């Protein structure tokens, strides 16, 4: 963030100057200074939590939003502007663009939302006496204004630094939050109304559960990252037994994820496909090392020993509830559509969906990676081979999805991608890598 393009820099200066003007003007017009200061402290407290929490859901931005909105309702547009400005300044962002940009952005947003709210002419005691519909309408107007102004200000800066179009940044990161904003807007109203009677107690009672929930979300995100890292590390440990397959599991996992997404699976099932791919060969541990590492042809007994690995994998993983559906993928990933596979000899539709995905992903990665006894095939050759065997060995639909996924993302074995598409929801990163993929595919 330190090396900003000049245009982004000027944009920040511009927003900051607007905020300073707005702040000075507000300072001369605001009446309830005590409330403004308390709200500013609360705003900071809520905002500070954000920096420690991983941004995973809209909860992460909501609590300071609620406080800011309530400040507008209680102290008016000018008060709200000052609360956002002071609160933003007290927030301790480390790098200077954020330090300058965030408070300015908050202040400008708050002033616009406050202006929208003041159209309804509800002030002071009006919060308690005004009819409900009027309060709700005013709240929604203010929240909507906030919803439009703030993401736009942010989208511009992201666009200026990354070079992506404003519209794209805006739509990917913020469109889904609309409903949440309404809900939080009404919470802001609740806080404002309770504030007139209870003061800080109202804020504590309202903010506490949200902050606790946010901490739980952050813990979840952290644990989730730990989980992925752990599974990956352990799978790598398993792969040390089998020279041929270094990195194979992660690549299969990535392909399986992409195929699953291409076939329009729900996100939680995509997840399962990803884990099934990751763990599909874990049962090879139960196969004697000398068989796995043998150079040259295997005899009958040795081949029988290898054939047991789906069963071993099933035995190892069967107690993980979360992977219950992935188990079928692990257990049946060596079946064939014509029924001549193992361990069960299932045919056609009897083979579970995850298994059909893993089969194709497994075969594709095996063909496109170098083994000691042969060289890697090119992507085109591998696809042609898969298509030749479709409806005999592989499910044609899955193969088609793979082809589509390869066209979109390109394919070079990059184990680092594992988990990246899932956990990091950073817009720019996601967008950037997707674009690269498209460009790569076009070049290919």
């Amino acid at each position, binding site marked *: 963030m330190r090396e900003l393009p000049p245009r982004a820099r000027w944009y920040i200066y511009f927003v900051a100057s607007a905020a300073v003007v707005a702040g000075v003007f507000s300072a001369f017009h605001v009446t309830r200074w005590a409330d403004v200061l308390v709200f500013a402290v609360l705003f900071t407290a809520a905002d500070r939590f954000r920096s420690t929490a991983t941004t995973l859901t809209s909860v992460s931005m909501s609590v300071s939003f609620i406080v800011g909105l309530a400040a507008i309702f209680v102290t008016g547009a000018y008060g709200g502007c000052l609360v956002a400005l002071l609160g933003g300044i007290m927030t301790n962002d480390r790098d200077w663009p954020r330090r300058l940009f965030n408070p300015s952005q908050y202040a400008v947003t708050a002033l616009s939302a406050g202006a929208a709210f003041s159209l309804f002419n509800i002030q002071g005691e009006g919060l308690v006496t005004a009819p409900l519909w009027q309060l709700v309408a005013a709240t929604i107007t203010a929240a909507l204004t906030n919803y439009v102004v703030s993401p736009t200000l942010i989208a511009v800066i992201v666009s200026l630094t990354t070079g992506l179009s404003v519209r794209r940044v805006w739509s990917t990161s913020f469109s889904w939050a609309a409903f949440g904003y309404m809900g939080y807007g009404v919470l802001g109203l609740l806080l404002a109304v309770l504030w007139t009677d209870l003061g800080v107690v109202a804020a504590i009672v309202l903010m506490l559960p949200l902050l606790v929930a946010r901490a739980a979300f952050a813990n979840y995100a952290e644990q989730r990252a730990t989980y992925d890292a752990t599974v990956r590390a352990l799978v790598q440990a398993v792969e040390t037994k089998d020279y041929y397959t270094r990195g194979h599991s992660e690549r299969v996992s990535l392909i399986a994820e992409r195929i699953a997404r291409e076939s329009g699976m729900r996100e939680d099932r995509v997840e399962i496909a990803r884990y099934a791919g990751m763990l599909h060969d874990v049962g090879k541990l139960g196969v004697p090392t000398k068989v796995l590492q043998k150079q040259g042809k295997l005899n009958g007994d040795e081949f029988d020993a290898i054939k047991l690995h789906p069963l071993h994998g099933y035995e190892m993983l069967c107690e993980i*509830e979360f992977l219950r559906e992935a188990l079928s993928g692990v257990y049946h990933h060596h079946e064939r559509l014509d029924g001549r596979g193992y361990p069960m000899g299932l045919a056609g539709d009897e083979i579970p969906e995850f298994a059909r995905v893993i089969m194709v992903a497994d075969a594709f990665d095996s063909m496109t990676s170098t083994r000691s006894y042969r060289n890697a095939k090119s992507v085109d050759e591998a696809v042609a081979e898969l298509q030749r065997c479709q409806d005999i060995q592989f499910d044609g639909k899955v193969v088609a999805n793979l082809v589509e996924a390869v066209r979109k993302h390109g394919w070079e074995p990059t184990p680092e991608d594992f988990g990246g598409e899932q956990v990091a929801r950073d817009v720019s990163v996601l967008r950037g890598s997707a674009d690269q993929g498209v460009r790569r595919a076009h070049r290919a």
Partner: protein
Amino acid sequence: MHIAHEIGPAPLPQRRGPVSWIVLVVGSAVGVAGVVVTFAQGGIDRPAVAVLFFSMVFVGELIRVSLPGERDTAPLGGSAAVGYSLLLFLGPGMRRPAGHSAYAVIAVVAVASAAAIMLLSALDRDPRPRDVARRVLVCAAIAGVFRGSGLTERLDSSPFGWEVSKSGLPVLAMIVAVLAGGLLDVFIAAVVRAERDRAPIIPTFRNELLAFSGIGFSMAAIGMLIALGIAIIGMWTLPIIAVPLLVTQFSFRRYAAIRRTYRQTISALSRVTEVGGYVEPGHSRRVTRLSVAIGREFGMREQDLLDLEYAALMHDIGQLSLADSIPRGSTLHVAPAERRRIAAMGADVIRSTGTLDRVAMIVETQAHPYRRMRENGDLEVPLEARIIRAASAFDDLVTASEAGGRQAAWNALERLRMGMAYEYDPRVVEALTRVLEKNSAL
């Protein structure tokens, strides 16, 4: 929606002793008393409000959340119960008194909980009646303290001149009541757990306090929000409060789910060594159960117990790096240097996860004899490692023993004692003996 029990290394045979029965019986008795007295007093003044809270508690009991460590909570139901306990006025502007007694609160919560228990049983889910009884008791305590003790007048008629609320809502009394309820909740949970795990009470209490504090404060705050909001604004507080309620419910549920998955995965991967034929079947899990029980004897914190559990599950993972398995998998008969090398390789695997550094350190040091700690000051063998070392040796000896049952355990302990003060930490062996005695394995 109910989350099934945690799979993974089960604690040592669980006990449902007198304490948990007392909780169940007293909880049911209080619930029945609430219903009877309410009927005797001629029912509830505002049935519509009662029905509203009844349904919230009922639904909340159906969609409970099992926090890490098999701790049963009902965020939605608990918040609603607190809210109804603290509800004095119906708004807007505190227009009418709510007019229900503490008994009415108990009756509503108890009947809703009982209905949920019946439905869960009918759906073949574990209704966990003891946890429900605990929640009824806690709710009774909050309602009793707040509505029945005259606390409201004493605290908020302001002998100290405190006035939290401009309109005279007894906010201080609410805080005192929910704190009392929260403490009772943790206390009951701790005595039941201490009995179940045969663990010392004070560390257990501390662990429960930490585990319940986040969600407990949330439920208390949301409950207060419900009561205050309804008094000042009116019933439309409830739909607004759905936001923090649902966020709380789902954030904890997701967190609990990933924690459970993580635990199950570590546990499953610990069997990797067994499937590979490196160690005796069940060795990792038995060692883990013993180690955690010993850790509890030492009053270890929850977080440390978790590290201990993971390290115990994975203490043999380094054997994967061996081309061929050790006969019978027991590291007892391997040369000490080789044993340390295996442990170091296992620690490397664990360390490469990037987040389990402490677990890796434990796995690495459990291959070192206790005595080295004194000899070279540079190597610190943590308690967890000493525990795993002793538990693992004990399990190897019992498995290898020709004799069965108690005799095998006796012999194994005897062997450990011979290695005491050099191989094994005497205090750990002592704690192991206590654990075995408590479980009548000796």
